[in-house]
């Protein structure tokens, strides 16, 4: 084996030096703040190159629209405030591989023509927006034509009062492979808004007290939302014109009002709704034009209507759910029933179980006559809790005449499923 000569060592050393030099250029750190080399974020951004880290120290920075167009890490130390003075879009990201973390972003401008956001991502990939606080912005975090971005651990607050005067908390448009994780959003128009977003996940977010929807899905196929909490939003959650959506383990609660639904499904197909909780909503799930979805192991409690299934729904399977303490478990507006109900627990079921297999021996008709009457003629609700309604419901249960007779759960469970 040949040993390297001293001359060779010099070459190796030289090469090493070059590598080290270039490395130090990649990981350059620029400090911004009073008492640091840069007082202005904009100046620091001007001199930075791809791969730099900009550390912004605490203080309030009113620098209009800050544009990040290099692949840098933009890190706040002790919560520096980026203030848009209610005039500018605060932070615009126009480069791939950007990290933004540790900032308070507040008071973006309000305009309905160019939709300014607290943080807006334009046509970028691999952007990470992590652990920021967005306060009183028009849009909170806005992503357009972006891929593989992560929005995580952000707190997004606004205090909008009217739909047209405030934007969405997290707004995603024509993007894919996004991860929206563990954000808390309130006071916006829609908490999370997806339009033409594919292959993305929404996980462990809390969206509450938003003016319109907690989560709004449009034309966004192959997405999943898992373990989120949607509470007290003006109209609940809406999933529309979409296929292949997975909805697991979410909680929809306290969406109460004339036009509020826990979950509004419109023109959805081939989706899977599993292990969610619908509590105290005017209607737990409202379905319209919904095909081939499976609603399994959900719990519907204390709702006005557990599920409202319009006659335009087809081939849906509703099985292994608990329906408890709802005013109406199910209602529908037609006599055609193309959906199947099996193995659900209904607390209004009064049948018996002679062979003790935990399945009631008498089929259950979840559709009460009164709910059919109300659907045909809403003012009938005026007779809610009137004695005659109870009587009519009883007699209809014995001999169904007005309710569709194939609207039936053949295997009602005797005990609630532990969920």
């Amino acid at each position: 084996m040949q040993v390297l000569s001293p001359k060779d060592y010099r070459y190796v050393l030289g090469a090493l030096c070059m590598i080290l030099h270039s490395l130090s250029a990649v990981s350059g750190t620029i400090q911004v703040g009073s008492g640091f080399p840069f007082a202005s974020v904009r100046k620091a951004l001007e001199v930075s190159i791809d791969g730099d880290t900009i550390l912004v120290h605490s203080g309030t920075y009113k620098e209009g629209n800050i544009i990040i167009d290099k692949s840098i890490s933009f890190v706040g130390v002790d919560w520096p405030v980026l203030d848009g003075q209610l005039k500018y879009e605060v932070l615009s990201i126009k480069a791939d591989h950007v990290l933004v973390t540790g900032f308070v972003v507040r008071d973006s401008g309000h305009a309905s023509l160019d939709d300014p956001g607290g943080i807006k991502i334009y046509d970028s990939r691999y952007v990470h927006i992590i652990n920021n606080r967005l306060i009183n912005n028009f849009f909170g975090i806005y992503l357009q034509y972006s891929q593989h971005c992560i929005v995580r651990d952000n707190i997004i607050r606004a205090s909008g009062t009217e739909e047209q005067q405030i934007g969405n908390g997290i707004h995603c448009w024509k993007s894919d492979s996004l991860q929206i994780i563990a954000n808390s959003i309130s006071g916006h128009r829609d908490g999370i808004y997806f339009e033409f977003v594919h292959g993305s996940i929404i996980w462990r977010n809390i969206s509450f007290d938003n003016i319109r929807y907690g989560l709004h899905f449009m034309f966004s196929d192959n997405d999943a939302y898992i373990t989120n909490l949607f509470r007290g939003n003006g109209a609940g959650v809406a999933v529309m014109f979409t296929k292949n959506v997975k909805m697991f383990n979410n909680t929809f609660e306290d969406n109460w009002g004339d036009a509020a639904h826990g979950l509004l499904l419109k023109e959805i197909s081939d989706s899977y709704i599993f292990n969610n909780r619908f509590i105290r909503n005017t209607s737990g799930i409202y379905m319209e034009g919904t095909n081939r979805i499976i609603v399994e192991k959900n719990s519907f409690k204390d709702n006005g209507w557990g599920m409202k299934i319009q006659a335009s729904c087809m081939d849906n399977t509703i099985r292994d759910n608990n329906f408890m303490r709802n005013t109406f478990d199910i209602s529908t507006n037609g006599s055609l029933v193309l959906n199947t109900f099996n193995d659900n627990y209904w607390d209004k079921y009064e049948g018996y179980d002679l062979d003790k297999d935990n399945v009631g021996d008498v089929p259950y008709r979840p559709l009460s006559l009164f709910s059919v009457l109300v659907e045909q003629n809403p003012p009938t609700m005026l007779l809610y809790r009137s004695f005659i309604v109870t009587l009519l419901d009883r007699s209809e249960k014995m001999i169904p005449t007005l309710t569709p007779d194939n609207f039936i759960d053949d295997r009602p469970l005797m005990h609630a499923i532990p969920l």
Partner: protein
Amino acid sequence: MFNKIQRFIVLDILKNRVVLAYTLLLAVLSWSVFSLEDDSNKGVLTLLNIVLLTTPLVSIIFTTIYLYNSAEFIELLLSQPIRRSKIWTGLFLGLFFSLALSFIIGAGIPILLFVPGHVALILLVMGVLITAVFVALGFLCGIMSRDKARGIGISILLWLFFALLFDGLVLFLLFQFSDYPIEKAMVGVAALNPIDLARIFIILQLDVSAMLGYTGAIFKDFFGTGVGTAIGFALLCLWVILPYLLSRRMFIRKDL
């Protein structure tokens, strides 16, 4: 506060076994409702049925029967130098106080314990008002006919009408005129039945009111405001005063 006749009647009725049973029934029903339902809101809805069915039934039938049974006592009083109107008022107040007391002791205590805030108050007030309305209607039944069986028959029929048939009629109207904007007219129709008035009053206090939709909104706009509430209460009071005055007029003019 009470004059001698009222005091005598109140004491007499409070000793009555039917009234004791009524108090006990209300107590058992409401305590069991609230201990079985883990959600007090649903308990209120169940209790609503008690207030709207049992209370009117017991009030009207007991009043009618009591009037017939005390016919001799009334004749005795008439032989004394007491004005007829005073006797009738005494009877009415005596019956109303004792039945209202039964309601407050039987249902009122669990209501105040389990139901939060103003809903409890509304339930109580409505229960007492409904008692008053049906005592007054009972007086009307009692004076209308000398025959006891016929009088009791009329009182049962009246209860059946207000508790059941009227709502059937409303249902019929709603479907016959479903093509017309009849929501506002329905407010007027509801005023024709004290039980419906009370029911709507209580339901508007509960969360379920959001389910009433457009009609509910109109009712809320009307009965939810201060003026509307006042009108609602006034209507219910009218349901007490009118039948009572009518029965008193008949009593004064009647040849006993």
